[in-house]
């Protein structure tokens, strides 16, 4: 690979509570400045993989039992999550997790503290986020708990970006949002990637949108990588279309056919 990779995950196994297997032998590599996607159903291991990379898994009694993870030359398994954030690796959690009792401004400010910015830096950082997310600027004094789902997702992304990360792990950004808002959020991700060179690794159940906005994708099944490839190629593959996009080889099915297809699958 010609471009240097910012993230290299090598054959990791993850165990929760010393018994439950979350990932078994996942390897992937992310070149700097790219957007890669992890696709898969519930429980396939997408979130586990992201949390292993950010180190947050240890706070949930999970453990990477073998394999290695390297982010920009740092050994992730030997660093604590706070140190990783200050080195430029930040995760946006599934379900947004804004600080509901803090207002929008405070949510963003607290995201910047890890870099111990000066007051002027902090102000510049805030303005930068508000130019990307003008909706947030309108509501900067509202408590985050009262924002709409889309605004909360924007706030969660903005709170991660204000720390000027090189790599953002984005977990289910489309969850529970209207299609229009999902597109708006993915457009911003693309802009951040183009304009600021931020790399993204995103986990998505919405395979259609993830394939449209990513360069490369990995398909996870039962804690393993079942397939990988450039997103444009995956989007054309019949098996991917059938399993993840709900489209048969002969083109878009009618709802009735799709239902028939699903019930047949369940019988197997």
């Amino acid at each position, binding site marked *: 690979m010609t471009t240097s990779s910012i993230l290299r995950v090598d054959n990791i196994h993850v165990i929760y509570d010393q018994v439950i297997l979350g990932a078994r032998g996942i390897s992937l590599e992310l070149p700097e400045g790219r957007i890669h996607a992890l696709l898969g159903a519930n429980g396939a291991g997408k979130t586990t993989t992201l949390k292993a990379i*950010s180190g*947050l898994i240890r*706070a*949930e*009694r999970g453990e990477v039992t073998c394999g290695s993870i390297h982010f920009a030359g740092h050994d992730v398994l030997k660093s604590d*999550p*706070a140190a*990783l*954030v*200050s080195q430029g690796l*930040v*995760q*946006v*959690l599934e379900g947004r*997790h*804004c*600080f*509901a*009792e*803090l207002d929008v401004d*405070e*949510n963003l*400010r*607290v*995201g910047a*503290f*890890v870099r111990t910015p000066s007051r002027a830096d902090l102000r510049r950082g805030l303005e930068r986020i508000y130019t990307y997310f003008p909706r947030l600027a309108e509501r900067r004094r509202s*408590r985050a*708990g*009262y924002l*709409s*789902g889309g605004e909360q997702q924007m706030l*969660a992304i903005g*709170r*991660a970006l204000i*720390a000027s990360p090189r790599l953002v792990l984005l977990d289910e950004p489309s969850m529970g949002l209207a299609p229009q808002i999902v597109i708006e959020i993915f457009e911003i991700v693309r802009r951040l990637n183009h304009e600021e060179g931020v790399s993204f690794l995103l986990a998505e159940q919405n395979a259609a949108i993830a394939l449209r906005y990513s360069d490369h994708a990995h398909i996870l099944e039962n804690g393993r990588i079942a397939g990988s490839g450039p997103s444009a190629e995956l989007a054309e593959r019949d098996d991917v279309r059938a399993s993840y996009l709900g489209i048969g080889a002969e083109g878009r099915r009618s709802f009735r056919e799709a239902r028939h297809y699903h019930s047949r699958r369940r019988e197997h």
Partner: protein
Amino acid sequence: MNFFLETLIGGLLAGTMYSLVAIGFVLIYKASGVFNFAQGAMLLFAALNCVSLQEAGLPFPAAVLASVSIMIVLALAIERAVLRPLVGRSQITLFMATLGLSFIIEGLAQGLMGAEVRALDLGIEDVPITIGDIMVSQFDLFAAATAGILVLVLALLFNKTRIGVSLRAVADDTRAALSIGINLNRIWQIVWAVAGIVGLVAGLLWGARQGVQFALSLVVLKALPVLIIGGFTSIGGAIAGGLIVGAAENLAEVYAGPLLGGGITPWFAYFLALAFLYVRPAGLFGERAIERV
């Protein structure tokens, strides 16, 4: 009328003493979601330290400063030895850990510094002064002023500093705080140290009133109704709860006591807390989580 006002004001002032104890709980509960059963032991330990150092010949301000440093060291030790290994465990696990901790601290305090009752003199005479026609205890006024200053300092800490905003973020969503690089261990160290210092202040005031002794650690039990009434997550609530409990106790003792054969102070606060549980289970200022429908 004057008698009523005197009873009320006396109760309110005494209530600030309850508030002081309750604030220590609220701080730790907010930041780490654990009801710190050891708060009473910390209070006893802090007051004993201060008295012992004073007896050893240190002037009072120096003894207080030394006690503050000891409470900071204790907070660091608790974070390292108890909280860090138990991170992510259930609330009941953490509660049991603080229960154990309270026995260790109590044992340590009495083993090192003796179990006899010690007198503590803060240099404030407990003689009443008259404001208008109303007699007020000078000591209670001093305690209330101290509580007021402490609350002001805490409010500034929480709202105006970066550490304060981080503390609130951790209290709100620990996992999210971790994900944006807030150092949880440091936050816990700070919170436990602040709670220890609040415990020191409360311990000194209570100790000056009833002697520094083992029973001091039982003020925990007095803080419980205050927390139920005011809410576990709000410093303002702890203050309001303390005032309500103090005033209600005093008024009930004076006006309802004779009808019930007297001596109702020990249980009246719990009765009141029970009544509050029926109508406002989250307490007066407890955070009911913001939920979008």
